[in-house]
């Protein structure tokens, strides 16, 4: 590859990295449900990717490489911030929902709360597969776990979500706080 081709490739890769901002933000949001944290993590992942683009060996693996950086930013954040918050204190932001969309909005809130209650590993797998459309092999690469673990985590996650959400659909009223009644209060690392 000559110099000119190299420069063009770098520019194209950097463009693709920048184009992934929204996906990174959405994924980070789905993991923590904190818009500010998600924005910081997405920004950090992009900044790191832009400076490390020369380390990317195969251009076709850019997406999984980029989300691998995001997961590392997420882990780094945990390492630095060991404080915890009550799961019930997590507020899901929804502004001015029109009346007619209330039912849908309730469901959206409920899904997000249910996702928040999943163990972190399951939450990450289900969002990477479901929201970002990564293949199992790519998720395995991003999270550095075997494909079998991806499949089992995904399976457990969807099964748990089905218990929460499809029950909700029939009852039309769910309070995830009540789902866990009788169990110790759930906490998550912020």
């Amino acid at each position, binding site marked *: 590859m000559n110099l000119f081709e190299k420069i063009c490739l*770098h520019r194209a890769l950097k*463009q693709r990295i920048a184009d992934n901002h929204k996906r990174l933000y959405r994924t980070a949001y789905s993991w923590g449900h904190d818009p500010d944290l998600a924005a910081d993590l997405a920004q950090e992942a992009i*900044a790191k990717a832009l400076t490390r683009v020369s380390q990317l060996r195969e251009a076709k693996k850019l997406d999984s490489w980029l989300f691998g950086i995001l997961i590392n930013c997420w882990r780094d954040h945990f390492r*630095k911030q060991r404080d915890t918050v009550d799961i019930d204190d997590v507020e899901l932001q929804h502004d001015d929902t029109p009346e007619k969309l209330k039912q849908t909005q309730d469901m959206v809130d409920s899904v997000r709360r249910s996702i928040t209650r999943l163990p972190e590993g399951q939450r990450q797998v289900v969002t990477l597969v479901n929201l970002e459309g990564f293949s199992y092999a790519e998720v395995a690469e991003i999270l550095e776990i075997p494909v079998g673990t991806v499949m089992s985590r995904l399976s457990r996650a969807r099964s748990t979500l089905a218990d929460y959400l499809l029950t909700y659909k029939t009852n039309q009223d769910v309070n995830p706080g009540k789902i866990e009644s009788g169990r110790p209060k759930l906490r998550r690392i912020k």
Partner: protein
Amino acid sequence: MRHEDFNYSDEILNAYLDDELASEERKQLIEDMRVDNGLRQRVCRLEQVRNIVSMAYQDIPEPRHGQHIIKRRFASYSNLAASILVVVGIIGGWFGHAYLQKDTGLVEMAESVQLNTPVDEARLWKVLLHVTSDDPYRLNVLLDETERVLREYRTKQQKVSIQILANGKGLNLLRNDTSPYGQRIAELQSNYDNLVFTACAKAMARVKQKTGKDVQLLPDTQVAPSALSEVLNRQKEGWTYIKI
């Protein structure tokens, strides 16, 4: 692969929904679903979950704080990414800015360079020097070159505006307690009002987190909310960007 008595695991059913099954397995599963109502219901249940999870994140909230910054930052990424290009060793020249081309080392040691403005002697040349290292050699070259450019522009009565932005380890350049360049920076600032030093607030917060103490900056140092947003804003405003 045939699954006896349609005893498919949830893993296999999910793999079907996520298009991860080989075509033969997929075909077999579809056939089995035709005759097994229970199997169909299991797949439907998982598919419902899959769909509502996707639906729940189609419209997600913007960050609560610094929303405008994030938006602007996002809008600028593509420009930045498209224009940052030059890596050490492949910079061919400095497009006429001979001041930096002498035996300086500044351009040679730059990690990236982005030239936004055409070279026009009558126009104000705005340069952002972004320093992320506390390597004494780099910092010395940075200050030497900055001073040389400021001096030569003044001599030739040309306009230049230079901002030195520090984050990461580069923040040590501007910290009152760690910078060996306090005196020199003060002199530069008093001699040239077209030179500004800026520290990244995020880097300062990280230092505070690590040391438990507030970061004290050299006098007259400005603070930007984040180095990245500062770079993007400057880039948008047409500043030449050089990362040291």
